[in-house]
């Protein structure tokens, strides 16, 4: 490994250059994280007047709480569903756009737009489209004899939040998949077609395996997104309901802390989430270091 060395004229310059980054990390990560850690070991009395130090009691309670365990399961279903949908659709789009010659840039631009829409606005959009009384989707589903009601039916609600969350992520995945596809040498595809592989066969035996580094990277990104970055979507569409059917972990943090006023439990939940993010990030970095599996 080659090491890069820079020489600075002043020995304080490197510290000065790093300072803004360090400051931002301190203010927006280290400080709140340590606050959460501290709070996760406190319990407030019902009136929020006094708090007592309770060690890991908040965590113990959480893991004994069926609602919390249910929220974990909900989160898992939601994350897997969102990741599959977002990645499947964007891979399909990327493959189709990659096949185009002249209109490729057009489609790419259009497909990137959803990424620029604020989550809350997108949420409202979905709220309207799926609204049981005025929405277009329930109206159309009625035509097929399906009675859509995500306010009563937990499965409908889950489908709604999965679609809404996945939609947002498709642009991002699409760009990565498209770049991944374009980095596969055309001659490999040509060699495979001379070797007698049809279009589907080529995709599954050549293209898809060669995309695996991109796919893995996106999988981690999408899981992280679904678990931690979908608060806005849930809040604007189902608010975790009905009957907690879409109450994923991040949403529960908010509900328990700000609505329920149980700051200690909420903080403990944040700490658990933080641990999950750290694990996922480590896995991802490990993988990127090893790079491709071929």
């Amino acid at each position, binding site marked *: 490994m080659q090491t890069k060395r820079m020489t600075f004229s002043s020995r304080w310059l490197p510290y000065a250059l790093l300072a803004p980054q360090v400051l931002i990390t301190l203010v927006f990560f280290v400080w709140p994280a340590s606050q959460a850690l501290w709070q996760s070991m406190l319990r407030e009395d019902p009136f929020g007047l006094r708090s007592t130090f309770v060690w890991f009691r908040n965590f113990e309670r959480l893991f004994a709480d069926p609602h919390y365990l249910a929220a974990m399961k909900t989160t898992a279903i939601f994350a897997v569903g969102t990741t599959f949908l977002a990645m499947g659709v964007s891979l399909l789009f990327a493959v189709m756009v990659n096949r185009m010659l002249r209109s490729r840039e057009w489609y790419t631009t259009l497909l990137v737009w959803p990424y620029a829409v604020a989550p809350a606005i997108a949420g409202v959009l979905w709220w309207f489209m799926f609204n049981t009384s005025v929405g277009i989707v329930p109206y159309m589903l009625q035509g097929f004899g399906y009675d859509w009601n995500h306010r009563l039916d937990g499965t409908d609600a889950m489908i709604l939040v999965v679609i809404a969350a996945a939609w947002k992520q498709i642009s991002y995945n699409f760009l990565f998949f498209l770049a991944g596809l374009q980095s596969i*040498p055309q001659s490999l595809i*040509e*060699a*495979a077609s*001379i*070797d007698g592989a049809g279009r589907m066969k080529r995709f599954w*035996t050549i293209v898809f395996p060669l995309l695996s580094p991109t796919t893995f990277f996106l999988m981690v990104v999408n899981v992280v997104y679904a678990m931690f970055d979908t608060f806005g979507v849930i809040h604007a569409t189902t608010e975790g309901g009905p009957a907690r059917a879409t109450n994923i972990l991040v949403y529960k943090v908010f509900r328990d802390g700000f609505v329920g006023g149980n700051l200690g439990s909420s903080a403990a939940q944040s700490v658990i989430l933080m641990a999950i993010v750290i694990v996922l990030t480590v896995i991802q970095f490990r993988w990127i270091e090893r790079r491709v*599996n071929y």
Partner: protein
Amino acid sequence: MARIVMDDLHKVYPGGVKAVTGISLDIADGEMIVLVGPSGCGKSTLLRMVAGLETITGGTLSIGDRVVNTLEPADRDIAMVFQNYALYPHMTVYNNLAYGLRNQGVAKPEIERRVQEAAAMLQIGDYLQRKPRALSGGQRQRVAMGRALVREPSAFLFDEPLSNLDAKLRVQMRVEIRQLQKRLGTTSLYVTHDQLEALTLADRLVVLNAGQIEQVGTPMELYQRPETLFVAGFIGSPAMNMIEMAYLRDRGAAPTTLPGGTDLVGMRPDDMLLTAPAAPHLSLNGRVVLLEPAGAESHIYVSLDGNDQPITVRIPGLPTMNEGDPIPLHVPLEALHPFNTASGRRVSA
């Protein structure tokens, strides 16, 4: 085994580039044809049209006794060796070789037999379980060849397969390709821009220029009797010297044996002799500009008296002479190549 017939093939790319403009060629069963020409002349395009990787925008192409214009690559019964080898990076060498056979539905024991046979032929048996990235350039080249061999196709297509190898390996692989091709007797179409590769490999050589055939013939025919100025300049190294008829006339050296209409006379560097031969010849005088030893032979760059265009002389061994020395040159009349600049063609008597 198959005959390949191209009848007035044309290729216009979607952007409007006319890459191939009317090529007709009849390739006999088992023949090794080399397509040679400068970069951008349409060699790869023509080869890829045969492979089915580019659509044919005009003319007919038959392989065996079938017209294959619109057939998929897989249905043409050809195998191709790519310039960058195009090995599947995520598969072992064994699977690279077996991939095409599996797609054809060949039975497992038969696949095993053919892969082992090809591996033995190409001496890659020891690497069958490796991935391509763990191979050297030469080994990759062999795997690429192996992938074509196992298919036992009716024709091989090669697109500059040796251009990524170093000089020594290139010569070695060139010999092996020729031996294999002769042994298997498979019709082959080989693209290269390297004229030495072309001369040594070809049964017949096809010189392409700007999407058209300049000349077709055995390597010797093309070397001894180039039909166009382009071929004369392209085949042979160092390139043929071109001297204007007007210059020869001024010097009183114009041979009377050349056909009328000749205004440019080609002379191969090896036909320019330092001592006068017994046969009828013409003589010129010049000065040595540079002496370039090249092992068994030497190249002398000469500036002819009253003409600044330098010409090249090739002689065996290393002569003793200095830059600026006067040098007499003698060229047998039968070694002269008469050309006409306006038509760009050889003038026949």
